């Protein structure tokens, strides 16, 4: 078990990086606490595999430090860091039986055969691999092979962390949730630090206690799934997490509020007083479809919008509205009447977010 | 690269290159120097041996003949193998597995078995001592190989591409030439390489089916024993010149060698 700390970490694949675009990982400081279940979430190319390989030791960072329990491990290889890693496609030793596959890391360490057998049986029990122990790894299905890969990581006593690089990619959809639950169960049972890389937000939210969202080589937010949903600290988090993603409208600052099109939207005082200081930045407001109020009455601060289309998704509906030329989505419960042509929309101050240069503007206490 | 690997590699490459170096060495010496005593490099460097080959018709015609039938063979093999490989890759038809297997067994036939029958066959149709005869004879071994290699590469191209082309209105010949062939470019390169290789190096059939008009260089070289003994210098020069086309071909397909040698089957 280890606390993994990344200090001033940056990585470029080129030997003479010129600018920010040459960096796969831009300067970051981050701590993964001991025993946590974490997800590293982000789109393709954001640098999550690079970061994972730096943590595991398959890649040495070009700048900054990686520390395991305050010990600098930059130059140590994965086996020296006691890292176990599960890859995107199952890696098994085809010619060996499942038992021998699981026993392999232990035997390489010179562990006594009796201990090897007990450990292998223990892990096989947890992963439901017992009926397969005598089979050759070659003939297993993809999800069985992936379980064997995970098993090899778990079988060692001294493993400091297990890293998963999109491990469910080749698994059939109906088996994915089974394996996800298995992983959660393993985490609760063994309490090992686990970092799970994925581009699927559902996988991330069901597995992890805390999710690190990566975008453009940086971790833009690190929080619980709920925090990511309710208070996204970056426009990308708003857009990426949630289905559909957050509505974002580009605005200009004007006396105590913001404007877009002909609409003036006043902001709470705590935010409004920061506007002058943000004069040079690009401003957006964001609100999640779940929190947009839609009604037939103007109400307080209601804005007139034109209904464009409605998608009925069974237990709820998604309505797309045009507000001052911007398309926004709102989520309506199934029993709410759907406006035909026009509706009044409201953005409750509690859920309205202001972003300057894509970063959340926090109300100063 | 660790030391042991490096040593193995260097020793192996030296092993390969030394005999070739020796041949090149000899080709630049006169016969007197060769027979006079062993020298590690030519003391009296001379281009006479090469001059002989380039000026004596019986020598250089050998090269021309060989190159001619090898090119013929490569073109014919590719031309017939491409549609056949496509058929094997995309369709199931009556007897397809048996046909494929039968094709491969021809590769297993010893050329020596065909000496006499081929001689009689090509003589009877008046093709004895022609380039086309050798080209066709070599097809027996090259065409199965070409079909096998090309089928492997073609199977790597998804069938959806064919279907999309038909939906877009391409006729089959147009689709095949304009769309499909560029996609298997490296496969064609590798196939051409192997066809060239097997045809260029073969002696038995090439010698049996020719006498004067289409005499290949391999025949010319094996018959250079004269009354005064073997002309080592010229023989060495001739040998060096036969290595050159091979090196050229490797150079052209060098980017496909690694992938291609697996014949698309890893």
């Amino acid at each position: 078990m280890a606390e993994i700390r990344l200090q001033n970490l940056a990585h470029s694949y080129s030997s003479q990086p010129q600018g920010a675009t040459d960096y796969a990982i831009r300067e970051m400081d981050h701590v993964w606490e001991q025993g946590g279940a974490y997800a590293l979430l982000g789109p393709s190319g954001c640098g999550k595999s690079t970061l994972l390989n730096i943590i595991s030791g398959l890649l040495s960072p070009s700048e900054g430090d990686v520390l395991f329990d305050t010990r600098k491990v930059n130059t140590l290889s994965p086996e020296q860091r006691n890292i176990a890693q599960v890859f995107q496609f199952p890696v098994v030793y085809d010619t060996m039986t499942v038992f021998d596959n699981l026993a392999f890391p232990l035997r390489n360490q010179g562990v006594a055969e009796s201990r090897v057998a007990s450990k292998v049986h223990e892990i096989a029990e947890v992963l439901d691999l017992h009926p397969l122990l005598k089979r050759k790894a070659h003939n297993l299905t993809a999800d069985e092979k992936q379980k064997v890969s995970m098993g090899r990581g778990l079988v060692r006593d001294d493993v400091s962390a297990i890293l998963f690089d999109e491990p469910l990619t080749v698994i059939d959809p109906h088996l994915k949730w089974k394996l996800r639950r298995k992983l959660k169960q393993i985490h609760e049972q063994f309490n090992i630090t686990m970092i799970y890389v994925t581009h699927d937000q559902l996988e991330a939210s069901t597995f992890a206690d805390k999710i690190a969202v990566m975008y453009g080589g940086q971790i833009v937010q690190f929080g619980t799934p709920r925090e990511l949903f309710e208070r996204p600290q970056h426009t990308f988090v708003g857009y990426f997490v949630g289905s559909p993603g957050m509505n974002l409208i580009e605005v200009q600052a004007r006396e105590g509020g913001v404007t877009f099109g002909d609409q003036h939207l006043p902001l709470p005082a705590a935010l409004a007083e920061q506007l002058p200081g943000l004069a040079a930045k690009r401003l957006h407001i964001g609100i999640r479809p779940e929190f947009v109020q839609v009604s037939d009455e103007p109400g307080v601060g209601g804005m007139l919008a034109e209904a464009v289309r409605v998608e009925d998704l069974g237990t709820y509906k998604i309505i797309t509205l045009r507000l001052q030329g911007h398309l926004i989505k709102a989520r309506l419960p199934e029993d709410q009447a759907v406006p035909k042509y026009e509706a009044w929309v409201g953005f409750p101050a509690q859920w309205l977010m202001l972003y300057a240069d894509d970063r959340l503007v926090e109300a100063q206490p | 690269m660790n030391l042991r690997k490096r040593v193995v590699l260097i020793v192996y490459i030296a092993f390969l290159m030394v005999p070739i170096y020796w041949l090149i060495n000899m080709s630049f010496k006169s016969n007197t120097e060769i027979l006079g005593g062993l020298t590690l490099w030519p003391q009296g460097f001379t281009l006479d041996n090469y001059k002989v080959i380039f000026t004596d018709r019986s020598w250089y015609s050998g090269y021309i003949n060989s190159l001619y039938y090898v090119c013929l063979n490569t073109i014919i093999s590719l031309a017939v193998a491409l549609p056949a490989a496509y058929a094997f890759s995309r369709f199931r038809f009556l007897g397809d597995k048996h046909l494929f297997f039968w094709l491969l067994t021809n590769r297993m036939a010893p050329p020596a078995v065909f000496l006499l029958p081929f001689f009689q066959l090509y003589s009877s149709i008046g093709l004895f001592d022609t380039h086309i005869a050798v080209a066709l004879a070599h097809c027996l071994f090259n065409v199965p190989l070409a079909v096998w290699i090309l089928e492997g590469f073609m199977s790597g191209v998804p069938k959806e591409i064919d279907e999309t082309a038909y939906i877009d209105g391409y006729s089959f010949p147009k689709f095949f030439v304009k769309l499909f062939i560029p996609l298997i470019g490296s496969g064609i390169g590798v196939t051409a390489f192997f066809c060239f290789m097997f045809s260029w190096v073969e002696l038995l059939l090439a010698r049996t089916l020719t006498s004067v008009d289409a005499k290949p260089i391999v025949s010319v070289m094996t018959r250079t024993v004269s009354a005064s003994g073997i002309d080592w210098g010229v023989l060495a020069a001739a040998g060096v010149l036969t290595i050159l086309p091979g090196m050229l071909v490797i150079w052209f397909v060098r980017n496909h060698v690694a992938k291609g040698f697996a014949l698309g089957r890893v």
Partner: protein
Amino acid sequence: MTKTHDNRAWWLVLPVFLLVAFSAILPMMTVVNYSVQDIFDSSTRFFVGADWYRQILNDPRLHDSLLRQFIFSGCVLLIEIPLGIAVALAMPTRGRWASACLIVMAIPLLIPWNVVGTIWQIFGRADIGLLGYSLRELGISYNYASNTRDAWLTVLVMDVWHWTSLVALLCYSGLRAIPDAYYQAARIDRASAWAVFRYIQLPKLKSVLLIAVMLRFMDSFMIYTEPFVLTGGGPGNATTFLSQTLTKMAVGQFDLGPAAAFSLIYFLIILLVSWLFYTAMTHSDQK
């Protein structure tokens, strides 16, 4: 890929079929025809049934030649396959050095077979060849023309020189196809280099090794030109293998009947042993 069932595909296959049939079936029919007849000249021939086959199968020349051939092919496989694998493992994985190695290694494969024989014929002579000369200077007695053991060694070394690169290049392609993740997982599992070879590389090389073994067996079993140029089959019959025996019989002595029978037996032996190899190697991972 799912293939559509369509017999019209025969049109695409027809050129190949006709060409190969022309080259294969017609001559084969001739051979079968000759193998059951005694031919004095074009107008005098008698049907003799299986006589030639019986004669051939009892012919000691054939037995000796066959034995020599099996020993030769066996040695060839025993040396070239492990050596080829070792060279492939030693090669750099990518980059300019890899390309350079590939090109250099491919050169012996493209040399006409008679030139291969000529190169070694020269190389092994004590008067004009580096090898022969060096061995003589070192006091080692070596003469491939008159000494059977030397002739065998030279023929074997020549074949290793000629063909090992094919095995190496095939294995090199096979190794390149192994994804990095396997090596990474092995490192994490703290596997030794030998374990990596045994459990990752060797299993993944199975399909290319099959191609390599089949090709080397078949081609070594059919070998004619190189030993013929190098030793002429000598000293005596020491390096006369099957193809040369057959050629002597067919073209030299013009014994068409026995030669034809021999041809068919020769072909059948290759087919049989190839099939055995193929079955053995593909069934070993069917457990």
